[in-house]
C-alpha cells in the first residue's frame, strides 16, 4: 500500500463520513438535551428528497415551470432540506416534549413517514418512481479547490496531502468538519450549552433555577433538525447520486446513532467515530475479496466489516457509555 493509496482511502473516508458526522452531531444535540432521536434516518432521508427536488425545480428552465436559476440551486436545495427536516424535528419535539409521548415511537414513526412520503411525492412530481431528475452543474455542491492547492502539489508528502485530501471536497464537507469545534464550544463554553446539557442530566435542577426545560429541549431538537437536513442535502447534492433515489439514506442514521454511543456523546470523539466508520467502509469498498494465499476473504466479510467492528468496539473496548441521565424521560413539572 503506497502513500497515494492511503491518501485515496482517507479521501474516500472523509466523503463517506460526512453524512454520518452531521447526523451524529444532530443526535448529540438532541440526546444531550434528553430527547432520544431514532428519527435521524428519516429526517436525513426527507432532507435528501427536499434538496434533490428543490434543486431540480430551481434549475429547471422557466418555460418548463421551474425557476430557471443558473447558480445557487444547490444552496436552495440545502435550505429546503433544512426546512423539511426542521418540520419533522418539530413534530418529534411536539410529540415527545409537549405531549410527553414515547420518544422512540415518535422517532420510528418519522422514519416510516419519510420513507413512504418521499417516494409518493417524488412519483407525483417527477413521474420517475420517486427519483428526482439527474442534477447537473450548480444544482449540486461542486468540489472546492482550496487556495494554493495547485501550486503546493509538488511539495513532497504535504503537497499531495493538501491537494488530494484536504482540498477538493464540497462545501458541506467543510461545514460538517467545522461543526465539530463549533459544537464543542457551544456545549462546553457557553451558558446555552451548560443549560442544554443540564436539561439532559437533571431537568428538575434547571427548572428550579427558573429556566424553561421545554424551551431548551425544543431548541436542541431544532438544531438537530438543521444538521439532519444538511446531512440529507449532502446525500443527494454532494455525492455521485446527483439527485434523490428512494431509501438512499441506507441506514446511515442508525450508524450515526451507533457512532454517537461509541463517542460517548462527545463532539470530538464523534468526529473520530464517524471518520473510523467512513474509513472502514472505504477499506471495504477498496479491498473486496482479499486473497491471503491459503484462503480468500470473501466480499461479504469485507462489506460486513464496519458492522462487525461496531459490535466488537461497542461491546468490548469503549468501556461504559453512560447516556444523559434524563434521556428518554419526558419532563413533568409536578405530579
Amino acid at each position, binding site marked *: 500500500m503506497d502513500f497515494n493509496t492511503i491518501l485515496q482511502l482517507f479521501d474516500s473516508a472523509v466523503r463517506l463520513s460526512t453524512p454520518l458526522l452531521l447526523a451524529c452531531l444532530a443526535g448529540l444535540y438532541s440526546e444531550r438535551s434528553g430527547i432520544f432521536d431514532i428519527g435521524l434516518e428519516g429526517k436525513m432521508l426527507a432532507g435528501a428528497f427536499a434538496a434533490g427536488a428543490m434543486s431540480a425545480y430551481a434549475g429547471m428552465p422557466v418555460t418548463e415551470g421551474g425557476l430557471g436559476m443558473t447558480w445557487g440551486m444547490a444552496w436552495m436545495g440545502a435550505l429546503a432540506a433544512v426546512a423539511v427536516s426542521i418540520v419533522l424535528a418539530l413534530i418529534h419535539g411536539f410529540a415527545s416534549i409537549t405531549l410527553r409521548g414515547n420518544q422512540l415511537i415518535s422517532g420510528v414513526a418519522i422514519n416510516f413517514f419519510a420513507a413512504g412520503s418521499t417516494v409518493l411525492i417524488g412519483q407525483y412530481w417527477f413521474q420517475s418512481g420517486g427519483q428526482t431528475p*439527474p442534477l447537473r452543474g450548480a444544482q449540486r455542491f461542486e468540489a472546492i479547490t482550496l487556495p494554493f492547492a495547485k501550486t503546493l502539489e509538488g511539495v513532497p508528502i504535504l503537497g499531495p496531502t493538501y491537494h488530494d485530501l484536504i482540498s477538493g471536497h464540497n462545501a458541506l464537507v467543510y461545514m460538517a468538519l467545522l461543526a465539530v469545534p463549533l459544537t464543542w464550544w457551544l456545549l462546553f463554553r457557553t451558558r446555552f450549552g451548560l443549560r442544554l446539557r443540564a436539561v439532559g442530566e437533571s431537568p428538575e435542577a434547571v427548572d428550579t433555577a427558573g429556566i424553561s426545560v421545554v424551551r431548551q429541549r425544543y431548541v436542541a431538537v431544532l438544531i438537530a433538525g438543521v444538521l439532519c437536513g444538511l446531512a440529507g442535502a449532502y446525500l443527494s447534492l454532494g455525492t*455521485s447520486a*446527483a439527485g434523490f433515489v428512494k431509501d438512499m439514506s441506507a441506514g446511515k442514521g442508525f450508524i450515526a446513532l451507533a457512532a454517537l454511543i461509541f463517542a460517548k456523546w462527545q463532539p470530538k470523539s464523534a468526529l473520530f467515530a464517524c471518520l473510523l466508520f467512513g474509513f472502514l467502509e472505504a477499506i471495504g469498498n*477498496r479491498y*473486496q475479496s482479499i486473497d491471503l494465499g491459503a484462503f480468500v476473504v470473501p466480499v461479504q466479510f469485507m462489506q460486513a466489516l464496519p458492522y462487525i467492528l461496531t459490535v466488537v468496539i461497542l461491546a468490548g473496548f469503549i468501556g461504559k457509555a453512560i447516556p444523559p441521565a434524563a434521556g428518554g424521560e419526558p419532563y413533568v413539572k409536578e405530579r
Partner: protein
Amino acid sequence: MKLIKTIIGAAAMATVATAAFAQATPAIIFDLGGKFDKSFNESSYEGAEKFKDETGIEYREFELQSDAQREQAIRRFAQQGNNPVVMAGFSFGTALDVVAQEFPDTSFVIIDMVVDQPNVRSVLFRADQGSYIVGLLAAMASETGTVGFIGGMDIPLISAFGCGFVQGARSANADAVILQNSVGTTGAAWNDPVKGGELAMAQFEQGADVIFVAAGGTGRGVLQAAADAGKLSIGVDSNQNYMQPGSVLTSMVKRVDEAVYNAFMDVNNGEFTAGFNIMDLSNGGVGWALDEYNDALISDEMKAAVAAATAKIVSGEVVVHDFMSDNTCPVE
C-alpha cells in the same frame, strides 16, 4: 348463513367466469429495485406498456416493498384470475415454485430464473454474451488497459455479467487488468447510488477508465461518477446512453421488455408455452446500444470488431462461458 353461501357461490361463479374468459387481465410484479429504476424493472414496465398500447388491454401491477411480499403478491394475482402473472427477478424463484402448483390453470412467467413447473415459462437471458460484447468495447476504448466491473451483489446471476465482461475484455486485450467490485449483500445494493459512486471512484483511482455496472438503480451513481471524472461507463439492462451523454460508452441491453411483451401477447393469443425461453445474441434478446448519445465514442474499428464477435458467437465459433452453468469463471 344463507346469504354468505350465496356470496361465496357468486364469487366462485365470478372466478370461473374470469378464468374462462379468454382475455384475462395480465399482471406484472416488479422487483425491489422499483418500477422506475431506469434499468431492469423499467424495461419490464416498458414491455407491459407496449402491450397495453397495442391491444388496449389494461394490466395490473405490483411493486414489491419487501422480500416478504413475494409469495403473497403472486398468490393474490393468481387468486384474482389474472393471467399471465409475470415477475421480473431471480428472487421470485422459491415463491413461484410454491404458488405455481396451487394454480395449475394460471400461466406464470419468471425472468432470470428457472422454475420447473408445467405452467411456468422461465425466461433466461444470456447476459454473459451481451457482457462479452461490451467487455470487448470497453477494452478497445480503454487507454490505460484497466477496466472495471461493479455488480450489485455477489450472486451467480450478476457474476455471469462479470464473467462475460472479463472474457470479452480479454478477447480484445489479453493483458487487460479487470477490477471487480460488488455493492452489497442485501436488496439495498440495487438502490445505493452513493456507494456506487464511491466504488467507481475507487476503481478510477486504481487506473480504470471504463466501468461496466450491473446494479440496477445503483448504476446512477456510477454513471455520474464517471461523468464527473471524465471517464467512461457502461450502462445495463435498459439503454442508459442518454443518462450521461458522451460519457456512457454503451449499454448492455437485456430485452426484458420483449420478454414481458411476448408473455402477455402469447397468453392473449392463446399461444402460451411453458418451459425455457432463452434470449441471447442470436435472437436479439441481449445486445449493445448505439444511438446519437454515444455515436462519437464508438469508432468504426470497434463496430467491426463487435460485428465479427457477434457473428462468431452466434455461429458457435466462439463459446462464451456462462457462469450460471457451473458457478465458475474460467478467467479472473
